[in-house]
């Protein structure tokens, strides 16, 4: 991965900066007639600096290398579980989804000992429920 990590991220930031400047900011920032600093001044100048820095990085990358692809894939799997968890929580609520998310994560990390699984999947969510709903009188997501 020598030299390439910075080139990849530099290209991305170059593209992001240009996209912001030409597409996103003109469409999602209102213009005003008066005032001292227009709403798009700050984002516009920042997006140009971002694009410039991205370009510079492509030409002058450092020796930085990222972790392996396998590690990225594993993280993607965890992120998928968490995303699905948030979506499911919006449908069924924390009380049902929280333990399921905890179970999935613990199994993925490799936990197989029943006592720890029970502690993480049953005891911990129950404790959170007790503290938030019973003690604090607030609602769980």
């Amino acid at each position, binding site marked *: 991965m020598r030299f390439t990590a910075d080139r990849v991220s530099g290209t991305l930031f170059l593209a992001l900066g240009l996209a912001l400047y030409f597409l996103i900011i003109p469409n999602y920032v209102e213009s005003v007639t008066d005032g001292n600093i227009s709403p798009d001044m700050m984002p516009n100048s920042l997006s140009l600096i*971002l694009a410039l820095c991205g370009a510079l990085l492509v030409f002058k990358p*450092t020796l930085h290398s990222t972790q392996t692809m396998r590690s990225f894939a594993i993280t993607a799997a965890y992120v998928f579980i968490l995303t699905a968890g948030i979506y499911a929580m919006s449908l069924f609520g924390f009380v049902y989804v929280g333990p399921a998310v905890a179970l999935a*994560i613990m199994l993925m990390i490799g936990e197989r000992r029943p006592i720890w699984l029970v502690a993480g999947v049953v005891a911990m969510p129950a404790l959170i429920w007790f503290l938030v709903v019973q003690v604090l009188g607030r609602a769980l997501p």
Partner: protein
Amino acid sequence: MVDLSIILAGFSDAFSLTNLLFVLFGVVLGQFVGAVPGIGPIMAMAIAIPFTFALSPIVAISFLVGVNKGGLVGGAVPAILMNTPGTPDAAATALDGYPLAKQGKPLKATKMALFSSITGDTFSDIVLITVSAPLAVLALKMGPIEIAALMIFTFSVLAGLMGSSLIKGLIAAVLGLLVACIGSDPENFTPRLIFGYWDLFDGLPLPSVAIGVLAISEILHRMSESFGRVRPAIEFVESDDPDQDRVTWAEYWGCRFTMLRGAVIGTILGALPGIGSTAAAFMSYAFAKASSKDPSSFGKGNLHGIAASESANSAVMGANLIPLLTLGIPGSVGAALIVSAFMIHGMQPGPLLFENQGRLVYGLFGAMLMANFLNLWVGQIGLRLWVKVVSAPESIIFSSALLLCFVGVAMATSGLFGVAIMLIFAVLGYLLSSFGYSLVIFIIAFFLGPRFEKSIAQSLALTNGDLTQAYQSPVAVALLILSVVSFFWFLKRNAAVEKEQNS
């Protein structure tokens, strides 16, 4: 001014047994709740306020002071033990705290944080109690132009944290500032880059971004490393050396200048509303690193790093009360919560507070001092407990931390929407750090961005659109010169460290 008898009456109100118990309860609650990943010190206060409705004013405020101060200590715990700071200011503590904990010295690291936090806190409390009135007048003279210059100075100090690549440091900062642009613009209140989500109108919720970028992204890294293998979240290294688990007097005393500098920086920035503990913690850290004889040892478990950050961010809270009590201006979210508690109990912070409610104010001061002692004492026990908790297997620690962050962020923001933003920023933070961009710079830029843009807009309005008029303010000129000098000085120091490491 204020009668001695009123001062004495105030202190004697504070030192009653009921009050002592409530401060103790507050400190325990603050340390505990503040340390839970995803909840943090501000949330601890917000949770505690409704419980004070039924209490008498002095007890209620003492209790909240306890929660607040306990929270300051508690906030450092997840940063040090798990590298998952819940607030941006605790991220500075994690820089050296976590490496030290990983070397098998979690107790030493957390205790150093406790001692320097209380040192900084006590320093700023004493400043508050003795010279708050003149300091408040000075703070008032810092107008938008001076504040803008101070922000520029803060950004220049970031150069001290840039690491090897200036370009990548700059990208991290620009990205943080760009993300901070989301929300209403600071002058005309037009919605900016909110894509139809009105929840974003006031900006991205700080807890979502901070916890996502700093805590969850770290948990993602660690989970991907430990996939399929269960280890304890933190390893104890067995050793016969008793000094491993404690901070010796020599170590504490060796950090005295670092802590003093941190406390002074924290007190000054805390007295200026709106700058906040994040800038203080990192400024103190950058100065400690740059002035050290061995800067390359920073980031690898140097006690000075912990001392610098904790003394500064704790000093901010006491100093925040300077503009709050004398002028009625809250300097931070935590301070705004204290004002709300004051209002509930019929106190009106401002110029007449000392005259009208002197007894209550001195009661508050008494409670603050009492809370500092209790914090020290409770901390000694509490930290052992936390270190034990964190030595449980990673599987349960990470899954529980994630659930707690979900619940905590949902409570602190607008429900699951805030949680979704947290996850987005967790992924962003994960990718940024994988590709070698500094998350710390990103988060400071994000945090300071809106204030910076606002003070620029204000300065433009005040100078009729001509910023060159800033030369009329000696303070602004001095700060700007200082910014240029420190920027290049930090860059030179960085280059020197780099060279030393390569050879």
